[in-house]
């Protein structure tokens, strides 16, 4: 029998008992539908995170922090007068000083090091004359946040450039569009000279984002340095040049092993290095774990569905005993009989998964639209569910494989039928 004929025969066999086939397909459909949605959430959140963290172009970055020993496992640490801590609320952060910076720079594989300074302005003042508190993040080259209007910061510019969030743009008396190009005043307190004012130009307005929502704005290196200089004037030398983390650049094409060996070297010096991937990795792990649990439930649905396939096909084999006997008497080979029933099983899986995947994608689109208008309103570009073609194809293929495996049992029984017994069967 030709393969085309087998497919055609299997498909018309499937349609012979429509209700039974439909119910089996429905069971598979439920599993496929669930899998599509759970994987959709996983893919949607992951791709959003990737975008938000500006993954593109920052592969050469290693964020280095001082390694803090865990007081529970290693006991209290001895006091070291050379090390300083910045106390921010309940969390005390170990700082990296100028000496440390050199040590890091001398590590094999590290091309350059730049301290990430932490500007701490008192307030920001816009066109309406009111002063507002603001937290400003110093811009890291290579990580570009999404911009709603204007343009991104220029790392090499000698001007004081600032990005503000939409909320700040409005609070300061502008709109998202009109804020671009406006000059604002930033107040900074110097320990030696008291409060001083730095002027900065808003070059763009940031999209609201889950990741950087704590900060009200981003400053370019020049502005960060200007603010930092003021806030550290008059401080004792030992407290200058301290930063909680430094940005080390490594070769962009470094292999995982090379990155790991740099991390190990840093660890010996008492620093912890993390690539951007490592940092995203933690969030991704959590999401992957959630998706895994959800997929587990979809898996149970599919397991139940596969028993449905076994049952349906056993009944079909029973009903078609004579027909199988006749075909075998007429010279149909056992392997072809097996293929015929296996294909029927795969078809049940195919239609069930196709229906599930398409309806899942449809429902996903609706959820995305509803979410975009409600709880994700402030996060443009955040598609809660994403459906990459590969993962959709994978779902369909996996389900077809499950269906095939479920079908082997009845298909085997059909292929083992003795034509004489089958023809005698009433």
């Amino acid at each position, binding site marked *: *029998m*030709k393969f085309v*004929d087998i497919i055609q*025969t299997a498909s018309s066999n499937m349609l*012979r008992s429509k209700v039974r086939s439909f119910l089996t397909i429905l069971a598979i459909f439920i599993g496929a539908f669930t899998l599509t949605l759970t994987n959709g959430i996983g893919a949607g959140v992951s791709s959003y995170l990737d975008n938000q963290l500006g993954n593109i172009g920052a592969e050469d970055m290693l964020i280095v922090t001082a390694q803090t020993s865990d007081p529970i496992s290693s006991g209290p640490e001895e006091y070291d007068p050379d090390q300083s801590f910045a106390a921010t609320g309940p969390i005390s952060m170990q700082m990296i000083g100028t000496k440390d910076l050199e040590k890091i720079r001398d590590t094999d594989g590290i091309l350059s090091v730049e301290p990430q300074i932490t500007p701490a302005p008192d307030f920001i003042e816009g066109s309406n004359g009111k002063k507002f508190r603001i937290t400003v993040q110093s811009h890291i080259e290579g990580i570009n946040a999404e911009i709603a209007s204007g343009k991104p910061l220029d790392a090499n510019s000698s001007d004081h450039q600032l990005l503000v969030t939409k909320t700040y743009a409005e609070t300061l008396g502008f709109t998202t569009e009109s804020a671009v190009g406006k000059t604002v005043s930033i107040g900074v307190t110097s320990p030696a000279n008291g409060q001083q004012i730095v002027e900065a130009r808003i070059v763009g307005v940031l999209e609201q984002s889950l990741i950087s929502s704590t900060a009200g704005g981003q400053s370019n290196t020049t502005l960060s340095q200007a603010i930092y200089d003021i806030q550290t004037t008059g401080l004792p030398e030992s407290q200058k040049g301290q930063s909680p983390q430094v940005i080390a650049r490594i070769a962009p094409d470094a292999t995982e092993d090379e990155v790991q060996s740099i991390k190990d070297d840093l660890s010996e010096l008492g620093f912890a290095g993390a690539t951007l991937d490592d940092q995203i990795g933690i969030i991704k792990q959590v999401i992957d774990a959630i998706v895994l649990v959800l997929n587990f439930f979809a898996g149970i649905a599919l397991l139940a569905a596969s028993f449905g396939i076994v049952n349906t096909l056993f009944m079909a084999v029973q009903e078609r005993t*004579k*027909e199988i*006997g*006749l*075909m075998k*008497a*007429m*010279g*149909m*080979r056992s392997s*072809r009989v097996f293929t015929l029933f296996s294909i029927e099983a795969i078809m049940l899986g195919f239609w069930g998964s196709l229906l599930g995947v398409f309806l899942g994608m449809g429902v996903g689109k609706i959820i995305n639209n509803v979410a975009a208008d409600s709880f994700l309103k402030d996060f443009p570009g955040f598609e809660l569910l994403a459906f990459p073609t590969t993962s959709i194809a994978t779902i369909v293929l996996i389900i077809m494989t499950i269906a095939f495996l479920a079908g082997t049992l009845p298909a085997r029984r059909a292929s083992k039928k003795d*034509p*004489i017994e089958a*023809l005698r069967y009433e």
Partner: protein
Amino acid sequence: MTNTDTVIETRSLTRVYGKKENEFVALNGVNISINKGESVAILGKSGSGKSTLMHLLALLDKPSGGSVVIEGQDASKLPKKQVDRLRNDTFGFVFQQFFINANDTVLSNVILPLKIAGISRRERTRRGLEVLKAVDLLEKAKNKANNLSGGQKQRVCIARALINNPSIIFADEPTGNLDSQTGQKIEDLLFKLNKDKEITLIIVTHDDELAARCDRQIRIKDGSLIKEADTEKGVSSEVR
């Protein structure tokens, strides 16, 4: 002994069912030889072993002892794949219970052996219509098999048995489910094919009238041949 015209012959064919104390000898050392173009009736009461003999001749069953030789080839020495092919292109089957798929069209029932053989759709349809014409059912080709009368159904079976140009047609009680008038027509059709196309006809029956129309009768009782008589040729075949 084996002459060139022999299409099928058996050598001390034995079939035993069950094991040890439950052992039942259905066929005990049967030797027959059937020539090309012959029509042979296998007669016997139910349980005599006539169906067992036909199943063995048609290679649907494996003998416990002895062998079936088809066109000079010992079937027991052939690989399974080739046995399947032999059944597909050398044999045609006509059954008492028809065994047609009621929901399929007449044409698709008839072309089943060609579909199994892997012949293209166009060729299948062409030959399907040809054999339907031969059994006078051309106008029913697109009808559902379910809507046919008993005689028409059996003609569909004959068309199906004919489609691969077989050298042997096995008919198991071909008229058993038909009234005598319709049965007569089916018999006429089978014997006409036997004459015109020189197809060897092996009919299993307990109908003496039908058996009498055959060239030769093979009578079986308790698994052994009891008598072999020629009605037409007048030549007595040897009974070993």
